């Protein structure tokens, strides 16, 4: 007879550890969407958030933020260039990836990725940056010899007109693109949230608030990244930090964080109050397998602590010494960056740690090497910083006319579109 208890038992033993019951197909050693898919929404969120920071200058005329305008845009671009990589690495057949754009299945949220991505890269970021930098490219291409000169010249795309009407047009175009860019940034990241939020099979994901949570956590993380980069860059270049700019950034960061925390709390309040059939397993998930990343990492370190720190500065900031404020800003932005990464982990991995039968939990052991290991993910997280370093070297030169008191990110005249 086929039934062989000994054999069956030995097979059960070599199965990955499952607590309770999981559908056999679910009980794999590591989740289908592993740490690479954690990196993907994180990076995309940073893109959207950094762009919103830049838009505050362009569209909403927040003058004190001008020193970080270009840095934010370049950050956005550096991360956007890396955004599809984790997805691509994760595919079973990366060589077929272009099918998503060539023959998209229009009812799939994932099929829209190529279009949303291309739109954002081509129609928003690159265009805005080009209009913003056009005049500088023309000037730099004349001034710089060698390879740099060639690079700048090629970026002018053959348009060398820097007459006043042309520069004015640049500014106007920059502003228009920025206005289009804000909903596009929301679209880019809201759509990432929708990928998860639309999965009704998974109660941890299938949630109408998911896109909004993703948008606000993206804004928060992108702004925190801009704060972090601005401070690090200023220290690395030994240029003074514009405290007016930093204070202003923190103010926006604080308000965005308040909204983000409110929406995420609302999500939990709603889940706990409406208490549908999934609530038991979700509660044990939060208190068990996600305790350190959700309650400690995301809620306490990534939200509550920065809220208190930044809130204290909002209240008593004027009495605090500049050095203290700077340290608090740096600390809170790092906390937020780590907290949002933890949030992505909780969403992506958390959603795959419990069975869709709602009867048990799976384990996840993070590998070190291999394409699903954390080494690859760390590399993918560091790559945008390397690209950004090149961008900064090329497009934020220290030798640029230091009109704002030697600030690294000060823009030469003509590019202040909103002015």
């Amino acid at each position, binding site marked *: 007879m*086929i*039934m062989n208890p000994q054999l069956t038992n030995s*097979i059960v033993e070599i199965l990955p550890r499952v607590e*309770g019951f999981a559908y056999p197909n679910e009980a794999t050693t590591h989740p289908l969407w592993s740490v690479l898919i954690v990196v993907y929404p994180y990076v995309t969120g940073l893109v959207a958030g950094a762009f919103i920071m830049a838009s505050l200058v362009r569209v909403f005329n927040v003058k004190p933020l001008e020193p970080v305008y270009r840095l934010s845009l370049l950050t956005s671009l550096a991360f956007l260039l890396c955004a599809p990589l984790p997805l691509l690495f*994760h595919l*079973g057949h990366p060589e077929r990836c272009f099918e998503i754009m060539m023959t*998209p299945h229009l009812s799939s949220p994932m099929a829209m990725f190529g279009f949303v991505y291309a739109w954002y890269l081509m129609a928003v970021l690159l265009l805005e940056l080009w209009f913003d930098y056009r005049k500088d490219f023309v000037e730099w291409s004349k001034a710089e010899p060698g390879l740099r000169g060639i690079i700048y010249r090629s970026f002018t795309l053959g348009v060398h007109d820097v007459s006043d009407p042309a520069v004015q047009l640049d500014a106007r175009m920059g502003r228009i693109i920025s206005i289009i860019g804000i909903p596009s940034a929301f679209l880019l990241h809201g759509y990432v949230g929708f990928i998860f939020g639309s999965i009704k099979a998974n109660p941890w994901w299938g949630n109408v608030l998911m896109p909004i949570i993703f948008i606000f956590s993206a804004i928060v993380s992108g702004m925190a990244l801009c704060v972090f980069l601005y401070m690090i860059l200023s220290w690395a270049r030994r240029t003074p930090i514009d405290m007016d700019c930093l204070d202003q950034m923190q103010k926006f960061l604080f308000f965005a964080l308040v909204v983000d925390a409110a929406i995420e709390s609302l999500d939990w309040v709603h889940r706990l109050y409406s208490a549908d059939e999934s609530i038991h397993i979700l509660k044990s998930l939060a208190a068990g397998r996600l305790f350190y990343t959700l309650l400690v990492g995301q809620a306490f370190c990534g939200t509550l602590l920065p809220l208190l720190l930044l809130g204290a500065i909002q209240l008593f900031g004027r009495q605090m010494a500049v050095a203290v404020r700077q340290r608090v800003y740096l600390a809170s932005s790092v906390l937020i960056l780590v907290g949002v990464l933890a949030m992505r982990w909780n969403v992506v991995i958390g959603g795959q740690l419990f069975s869709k039968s709602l009867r048990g939990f799976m384990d996840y052991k993070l590998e070190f090497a291999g394409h699903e290991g954390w080494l690859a993910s760390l590399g993918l997280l560091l790559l945008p910083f390397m690209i950004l370093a090149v961008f900064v070297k090329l497009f934020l030169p220290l030798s640029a006319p230091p009109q704002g008191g030697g600030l690294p990110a000060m823009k030469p005249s003509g590019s202040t579109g909103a002015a």
Partner: protein
Amino acid sequence: MKTTLTRRRILRALSGAVAGLLSLAASRKAKAAVQKMLVASHTPKGYDPTKHKWLMALDVERCIGCGLCVEACKTENNVPLGPNYFRTWIERYVITKPEPGSGELRGEVVVDSPNGGMHGFPSSLVPKEQILKSFYVPKLCNLCEHSPCSQVCPVGATFDTPDGAVLVDPKYCIGCGFCIQACPYGCRFMNPITKTAEKCSLCYHRITRGLKPACVEVCPTEARVFGDLKNQAPDDPIQRFLGKNKAAQSLKAHLGTGPRVLYADLDKEVR
């Protein structure tokens, strides 16, 4: 002069983008046509998918958990042998008696499916005298009318056939795993060899030739019933099943997927 030139350029780029978007529909039509042709080419001559509507019904009371269906499926469809790759599997539910004085209707619900039930089930760890009720539930693709898996496939590699099967084109699947996440029933898995998503095809190569799916063919107790809603003979097993089980249920009905796999005598604990 430069101004008009730039604007024209932008307009040209925009119209290019619009043209690209407009050609999307056409390319989709073309893809659908090709796909239809591919599907048709694998089916025997004379099989018209629009003239059938397949349905699977399972009688929980009849299933003895022997696992023959699981093994037959693996053999028939070349499913990898590992413990996480199943197009069909069997779950065993053991519901214990409530603690005396607990005020509960039932005790604990213990569910297991060792190796998908392929080699049968070892004795339950729950002592016999504590068991209130125990039964086996065969599982497979639920043949959803509104299948979430084909809805989310980014390239359309998973598709609904007119006769009610949900198929995957392994030559087209990019292996993103979205469909596996979207299936509420855990019926899909990533094939470790082909690196594409895989699921029950209802033995499409068999049913289009007038045969039953392998799992139905081997079931010794006729717990699995298979039939065609569009062509019903008077003594059709599916007809008999539906006549006998007027309250047959589907799994996770609240999700609105509209499964075409029906269960008789389904306990409320089964998810």
